[in-house]
């Protein structure tokens, strides 16, 4: 009986929007320029824009510092446009301009944020096995007067050290737990909603917005479990126990980059929900899609004994 057939295909008039340039890049102080240039495809046209056939290889990619063109990027072996002779600097604003045959010229402008002073310390907590027994305290001196956004991600490196060398035996992401919900936006949590819906957050990375601590020194407490295991090689005889180093990657994000990360995550969440209003991913590319965004990074390390 036809009554049991509950779905049918819908014919959409047209194939979607015409192709546009897609620019993806980050502007990081001291790092070489690298811009990925591709083209978009209409939603109902064939093709996978993430594969190499959509890479635009005949584009002209220029970097402007203020109004001055600083450099033209060349297509490299990774089929991306790059240059090493001119490196971005903190606090400066840059524009990426890309033109390609039969496609509208696209431009994107962003400023590289400053990385404020940060510190990381460690304390052992009393507790039972399998509990989060270590407290990492991350302190940031947030500059006043501007809205800043920070991203943190935590990893743990296990290594053995002898008199001649240091051998890394494993590097893994670390789940941390924090009660600082007021300034945390999750990025990667445990996957379930239950715990993160309570008053603490558990995840491997997060975005901090400075709404509540703008212009002040603020300490974020991250509780971790030293026992959290990762794949490592067999214990090395006679070299003592492996040592553990926690690494906190801290990034100061431009607002465009923050908006991109925020909306990209929301789109991932909502695109499978037919009742949710779709989310448009933030783009700062005029005439195209994608994100060209400033970021300053710092890596904080603290060594503990496992």
């Amino acid at each position, binding site marked *: 009986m*036809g*009554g049991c*057939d*509950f*779905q*049918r*295909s*819908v014919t*959409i008039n047209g194939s979607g*929007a015409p192709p*546009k340039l*897609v620019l*993806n890049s*980050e502007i990081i102080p001291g*790092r070489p320029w690298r*811009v*990925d240039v591709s083209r*978009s*495809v*209409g*939603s*109902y*046209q*064939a093709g*996978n*824009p*993430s594969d190499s056939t*959509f890479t635009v290889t005949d584009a002209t990619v220029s970097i402007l510092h203020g109004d001055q063109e600083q450099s033209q990027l060349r297509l490299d072996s990774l089929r991306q446009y790059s240059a090493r002779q001119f490196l971005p600097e903190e606090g400066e604003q840059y524009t990426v301009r890309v033109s390609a045959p039969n496609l509208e010229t696209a431009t994107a402008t962003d400023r590289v944020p400053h990385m404020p002073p940060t510190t990381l310390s460690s304390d052992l907590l009393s*507790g*039972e096995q399998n509990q989060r027994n270590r407290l990492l305290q991350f302190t940031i001196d947030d500059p006043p007067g501007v809205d800043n956004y920070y*991203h943190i*991600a935590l990893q743990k490196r296990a290594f053995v050290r002898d008199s001649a060398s240091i051998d890394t035996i494993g*590097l893994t992401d670390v789940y941390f737990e924090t009660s600082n*919900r*007021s300034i945390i936006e999750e990025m*990667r949590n445990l996957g379930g909603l239950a715990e993160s819906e*309570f*008053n603490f957050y558990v995840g491997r*990375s997060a975005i901090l917005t400075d709404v509540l601590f703008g212009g002040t020194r603020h300490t974020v407490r991250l509780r971790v479990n030293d026992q959290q295991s990762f794949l490592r090689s067999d214990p090395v005889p006679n070299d003592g126990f492996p040592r553990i180093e926690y690494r906190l*990657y801290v990034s100061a994000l431009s607002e465009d980059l923050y908006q991109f*990360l*925020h909306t*990209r995550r*929301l*789109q991932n*969440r909502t*695109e*499978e929900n*037919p*009742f*949710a209003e*779709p*989310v*448009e*991913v933030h783009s700062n590319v005029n005439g195209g*899609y*994608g*994100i060209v965004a400033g970021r300053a*990074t710092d*890596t904080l390390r603290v060594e503990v004994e496992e």
Partner: protein
Amino acid sequence: MCNLPSLLFRPTRGVGSWGVLVVVFGLAVVPAGRAQAPSDTTQASSRYTVEETGTPLPDALDQFVSTTGIDLIYATKLVEGKTTRCHLEEALPSEALSCLLLGTGVMAQRRPSGRFVLVPRPDATRHTLSGFVVDAESGETLVGANLYVPALQRGTATNEHGFYSLTVPEEPVRLVVSYLGYEKKVRSLTLTSDRRLTVELSPSAVQAGSLKVTAEQRPLQHTTRTSTVEVSAAEAKAMPTLLGQTDLLKTLQRMPGVQPGVEGSSGLYVRGGTPDQNLTLLDGAPLYNVSHVFGFVSIFNPDIVQNAQLTKGGFPARYGGHLSSVVEVSVEDGNRKEFDVEGSLGVVASRLTVQGPIVEDKTSFLLSGRRTYLDWLMRGLSKEDLDGGYYFYDVNAKLNHRFSSSDRLFFNLYTGDDRYYNREDDGSSSSSYGWGNLTSTLRWNHVFGSRLFGSATVRYSQYQFTVKANDDMERGTYVLDYRSGIRDLGLKVNFDYDPNPQHAVRTGVDVTHHRFQPGATQYRNNSASGAQLDTTIAPSDPVRALDASAYVEDNVEWTKHFRTNIGLRASGFFVQGASYLSLQPRLSARYLLPRNWALKGAYAWMRQPIHLLTNSSVGLPTDLWVSSTDEVPPERSHQVTLGLSRSFQDVGVDVSLEGYGKLMHGLIEYEQGAAFRLSTDAEWKDQIETGRGWSYGAELLVRRTHGRTTGWLGYTLSWTRRQFDALNDGAPFPFRYDRRHKLTLTARHQLTDVTSLTATWSYRSGIAVTLPQARYRSPLINGFGTRTALEGAEDHPISDAFFTIARSYGERNGHRMRPYHRLDLGANFKWGNAEGFHALKTGVYNAYNRKNPFFLVTDQSSNREDTLQVRSISVLPVVPYVSYRFKF
């Protein structure tokens, strides 16, 4: 004969015959030969229709005499230079004469010989008739019953307490009292002083209790009200429905100007508004979430509802606080004469109502309840140890006591809950979600005199959504308790004052204290290791607000042709140190056109200080009721309506055609991606966008209310847009329920005294949805900011990351789903006697199994071309139903 008055008389006699006495003046030329009067027109049973546009009184009297044969004597000087205006249908000769003389300063006196003599009218002596209209069987008051004096073309309707007041001259008048679903009553009376009269109406003469709507409504053209439709519980019960569940709100959805939400839901989207913009009153008490089962069943128990009235525009000043509509649901008071038990058995739920006198004719009660039993059934049928499920229940209780003919006291209680629950057998863990309303009112009605009626109401109501969870584990226990809701305490005082026939004044004050709790979570964790947590997370303290308003409105009859309802509502909303004061003018006007058509127009300025935050298209309990704050102002709207209406009483057909335009400001929506979260420190007001909206269109309603075949045709042509600076690049976009066309045909035919057949067909344009228009390469953000390689590797710059695909969406709501249409068929059988009845309702929902789209899914095509595909998902195919009701 150009430019001379011409008269056309076509009187007939007897009920059921077509008698028309038409008096036509002006430029019309009518052959004199047509002005023939039948020889039997002097007989008392003759009925006449008089229609005029202004004519010399002597000419009108001449024609009247020649047509009716009535012996009439008057002095020429008495009537010279006077004109008459009169519209009257099916009137007795004496009424026709009174009508011709209205406003001329002349009156007719009947002498013992049967002769009529015209004399100067002494200073108008008027008296007021007042009282209640009640059900003859149960003694319950009837809300909205019509009282009409044809000769005077004057009438009124009972107020929300069943009270009426009507002032008439000291001369014989014929009073027609009618109410939908009841036999009309005609009484001839002559008032020599003010008089109190309780009019008893009997349910329509039906054998075996089946419904036959026979009452004549007060003609549409005689009221200033616009944009108002009424549905009786009997009409709603007769409709074919999904699973046989009678639902008043779904019946209202079939009226023009009202768009339903998604299929099956009971939400009302009135003239481009949203469900929270409807002021829903249950016996005068406001309700917040008016649905069960996630919006699919309204909370109104059809067994005890008298009627529901929906006002879509032209709001009188007595209404306020919401932008788009007023839904007034009246519930029975409780039988004051005898005990009744009424109930129903359905596939989904059952209902039971008991009512009767406690002290006969003094005190009565009503108690009614219903519950679903899907959870019980599932538990019984499950082979596993399932202890969980979903149910809803609601209870209505009413107690009223009559101290005297002038004083009555009412106590009303409604409480209802939805609950989803899950429990482990050993009790180690459980979780539940619950939401529901509780509203109670204590009302005192007092008749101060024949022209002044007053009522005072104290009310308490709350709506609450709760989540509870507990887990008892070896390592410890945790308890979660989440609450959000709104709690009101209010006092309302109203007065109805009819100082003279030209004025009907209503005034009152309404003060409500609100307490909003947008969401708070208490979390307790007792760990075996000794670590304990006991904390409450709330983004903000509860918000307390005072909402005070006063109003006055006057229904003024300027001339026989021109009437207005002029009103002003003053309101103040006081919250968090902010004061929102407003003066809201209201105006409705009616001008009587030739041929009994009424031209009606209205303007209303409305303001709404309470908002509903939702990102769903159905009524979910996670929708949050929030208050205006010092940062979020109230929503405002301006609405104008203009239309034509007329009742063709001889065939029982009402016709109404209206255009409207509405502008709304201060609308709020969640910002992109924001949604309800069980626990968050983020304030809701930091997650919203504000914008505006507008809607305009036209509505046609042709409705037949009596005869063996009743029903209506409703058509809506409308446009609705929204504009938010932060959405759709700031460009206006269609509202989700911006349906260009909506057509509803509803018919019910009384086949025999026992059997009636019903059918409804609905068509509506597809709803607006947002679809992707492009796909492009975008970095995978999961590894953002970390390293994948070991020593020496840099953290992931975006351009080095793995890529995935992002979607770019086109215009918000830029795509339309397929049109929706559906045919429902039903057969109702009702048999019994005056003591009780049995009723069987059966039929089929979606008779031709139309695959109407419920939602769209956009996903990757199953072919290898990596393209997107859009699939339309339907959820409600052809569904037969059967339900049974009884009363004894």
